[in-house]
């Protein structure tokens, strides 16, 4: 039996059947046993019912994306089987609830290893609790592919121990029953077997949304205000638990306008402040984003994108808020937009977002997305002592001699010292009106021009400040891929696959997406005139911005079905346009 290095298991069933919790558990167990893991989940927008899916990729190497398709499909019900049937490829494994569930017939799919496991029946008849169905399935999966059997037991003990030994025992029994069924009633014909990994010391497993919260803590956030919205709520949930520990404050505001207003007030007071939302909330915040830009108050806004417009696809994947983030708010509003590619990036780009906000006194938006927000993956633990924290340029009383303090003083860098209430001599009125250097309202043409130029000009050094653009060169490449956000990981994998097939392809991954890192992008386009921009939105939002700000004529590859790209999709496109 060959050892698999890379295995993708998809579990599908009805929302509320414990798919998410058991999926989380096997993921954690695998990570504990030293495997790399990356998960991908979709769930219905409704609380109960509807199709839910949890996909886990296991590997001994760093995992770049959720992958293309799956090797193992585990169906808790008929709906899951119906939804996925067309995607079952030859050579893969199908585990399904039979007999005793709602799948009526035994499955015989040509070239597919079909393993019936009567999960509902075992749960109901042997364990007399239907709720243990998910654990029966986990037991079978763990047994069949040698994934984390021991850590799985440890985790059950840790997780359910608080509820009493009885609950632990039921779960043990369910796990054992599933494993026993696999051992005794299934003849393993598939080749998938995960090698044990080496338990790693400095690994953590965390979701993209939690990672944004952690990044904020590492950056020194002390104030957070938000309004709940899928798929961003976990940022608030994480911080509501941990922010008070660092003496920070968190409130749930009455709406997203209030949450950004809160954040602006707090930051004006000198405290690093943040909010998190999704598209509908970001729409509501537009006026105040412009206000913070005008007031030059540092704020950080995380937008965990979902399918829009309007209520759209609340739980599905899309990267379609780039126009809004980059071009939104009325008037000429300067702001910065960053976009993380994976869970680890969610930590470090969030700390970077705070640093940029502080350094340049601008609103900084972080564009994550639903599948990244919900994705858990094993990453290297950050070292809090190594995080660079930048603080805003502060007014120092008396530093300018007798010259009165000017909040919006015109300086070479465009950055002016900010005073905080309580500082003698630093008094000023922070204002959304156009203002003189002193902060007093002033509408003269000369002042208008110099102040607008100040607010934009200060960002001229940004591209060198962040260094968030990665170039993957290749001599003789026919095509250069430009990807942003969570599509980057998928593109990386596609590029790797293409090169393995001998296709020459280069790539650039800008994580600073507004203002565009033009130096890097123009240099890239010069080397690789034919560029391909895969993105999960209808309009080709990054490609449009590239057409607007550079001479590039990128080929857009847009999908907008609510699902992310797979590496194979991008690979095929690379091959197609390379011809």
């Amino acid at each position, binding site marked *: 039996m060959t050892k698999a290095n890379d295995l993708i298991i998809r579990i599908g069933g009805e929302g509320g059947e414990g798919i998410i919790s058991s999926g989380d558990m096997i993921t954690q167990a695998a990570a504990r046993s030293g495997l790399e893991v990356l998960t991908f989940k979709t769930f219905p927008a409704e609380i109960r019912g509807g199709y839910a899916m949890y996909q886990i990729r296991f590997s001994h190497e760093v995992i770049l994306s959720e992958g293309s398709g799956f090797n193992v499909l585990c169906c808790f019900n008929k709906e899951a089987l119906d939804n996925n049937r067309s995607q079952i490829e030859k050579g893969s494994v199908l585990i399904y609830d039979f007999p005793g569930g709602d799948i009526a017939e035994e499955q015989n799919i040509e070239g597919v290893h079909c393993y019936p496991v009567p999960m509902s029946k075992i749960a109901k008849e042997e364990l007399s609790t239907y709720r243990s169905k998910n654990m029966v399935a986990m037991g079978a999966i763990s047994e069949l592919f040698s994934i984390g059997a021991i850590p799985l037991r440890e985790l059950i003990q840790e997780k359910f121990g608080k509820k009493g030994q009885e609950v632990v025992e039921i779960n043990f029994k369910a796990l054992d029953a599933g494993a026993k069924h696999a051992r005794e009633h299934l003849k393993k014909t598939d080749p998938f077997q995960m090698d044990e990994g080496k338990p790693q010391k400095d690994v953590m497993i965390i979701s993209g949304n939690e990672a944004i919260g952690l990044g904020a803590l590492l950056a020194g956030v002390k104030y957070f205000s938000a309004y709940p919205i899928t798929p961003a709520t976990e940022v608030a949930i994480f911080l509501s638990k941990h922010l008070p520990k660092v003496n920070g404050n968190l409130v749930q505001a009455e709406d997203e306008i209030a949450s950004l207003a809160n954040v602006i007030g707090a930051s004006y007071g000198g405290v690093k402040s943040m909010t998190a939302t999704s598209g509908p909330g970001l729409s509501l915040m537009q006026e105040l984003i412009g206000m913070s830009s005008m007031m030059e108050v540092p704020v950080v806004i995380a937008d965990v994108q979902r399918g829009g417009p309007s209520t759209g696809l609340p739980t599905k994947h899309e990267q379609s808020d780039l126009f809004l983030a980059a071009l939104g708010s009325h008037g000429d509003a300067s702001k910065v937009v960053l976009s993380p590619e994976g869970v680890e990036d969610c930590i470090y780009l969030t700390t970077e977002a705070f640093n940029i906000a502080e350094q340049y006194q601008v609103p900084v938006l972080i564009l994550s997305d639903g599948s990244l927000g919900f994705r858990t993956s094993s990453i290297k633990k950050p070292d809090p002592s190594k995080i660079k924290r930048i603080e805003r340029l502060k007014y120092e009383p008396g530093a300018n001699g007798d010259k009165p303090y000017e909040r919006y003083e015109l300086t070479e860098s465009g950055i002016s010292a900010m005073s905080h209430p*309580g500082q003698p001599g630093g008094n000023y009125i922070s204002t959304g009106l156009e203002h003189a250097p002193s902060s007093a309202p002033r509408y003269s043409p000369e002042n208008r021009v110099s102040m607008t130029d100040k607010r934009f000009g200060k960002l001229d050094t940004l591209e060198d400040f962040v260094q968030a653009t990665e170039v993957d060169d290749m001599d003789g490449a026919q095509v250069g891929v430009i990807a942003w956000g969570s599509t980057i990981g998928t593109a990386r994998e596609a590029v790797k696959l293409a090169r393995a097939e001998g296709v020459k392809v280069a790539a650039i991954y800008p994580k600073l997406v507004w203002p565009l890192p033009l130096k890097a992008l123009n240099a890239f386009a010069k080397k690789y005139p034919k560029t391909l921009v895969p993105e999960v939105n209808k309009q080709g939002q990054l490609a449009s911005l590239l057409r607007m700000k550079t001479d590039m004529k990128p080929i857009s590859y847009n999908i907008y079905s609510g699902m992310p790209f797979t590496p194979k999709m991008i690979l095929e496109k690379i091959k197609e346009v390379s011809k």
Partner: protein
Amino acid sequence: MTTATEPMKSKDYKSTVPPTWCPGCGDFGVLNAVLKAFADKTMSIDDTVLVSGIGCSSRFPYFVKTYGMHTAHGRVLPVAAGLKMSRPDLNVIAFGGDGDGFSIGGGHVPHVVRKNTDLTYILMDNSIYGLTKGQVSPTSQVGMVTTTTPYGAPDNPVNPLAFCLTYGATYVAQAYSSKSKQVQELVTGAMEHKGFAFVNIISPCPTFNKINTFDSYKESLEEVPADHDTSDLNAALKIALRAKEGKTPIGLLYKVERPTLVERLTEIRQKAKGDDNFDLNKVIDQYIP
């Protein structure tokens, strides 16, 4: 309340920016009385922040030497609340108009009130949109002819006092711009109050409101009875509802104590054993598989 060390006169608080209001605007009276209250309490210029929304009345902070924020239409309360939560050491006073507070910003009022947010909120109520040159406001009377209601306003007005009382405000007063002494007293009381203090100041707009004028108020003003019990919510509501009889009650309607937002947040930090030097490895370690 943070105070200055030197004795202060009200003119010491005036900035060099001359007020932009029309001659005869009620807001002048409010400015003078508020500055007197500041002087009386020797409020610290450096530790006081005046936050406002948008409107004629919201220009207030420019005319005062303290710190200030001139924010967006309707957003004065959440901005001020964010500032107060993160800097409870400051005196944060919110200013605005009737449109700013009860129309576009009306959705924030219940929440800032129910949380007993530690703010003083001074609203200059002229029952008209001044800055945009005379449109109907949420406190305009039914039938009022304005630029956008040439056939008469179709809507019932809100009652700012009853509104705040119902949501649980802990200090509710109404004053009249020309009665300077009372404005000063009620504003002082509001600044000294622990929790959310609301002072609705009737401040006529002679330029655009020809119905609610200095003359008309002579008829309708009515002092809160001397024997009114300011801890009696029902009695306070009854006074607030005198507006239905065309009366304009002035004085302190209600004042009680209850835990404030800042106090509640402090409790949360204490429960979490908040520590400025908290080691974040303790959070990270919770995510080890």
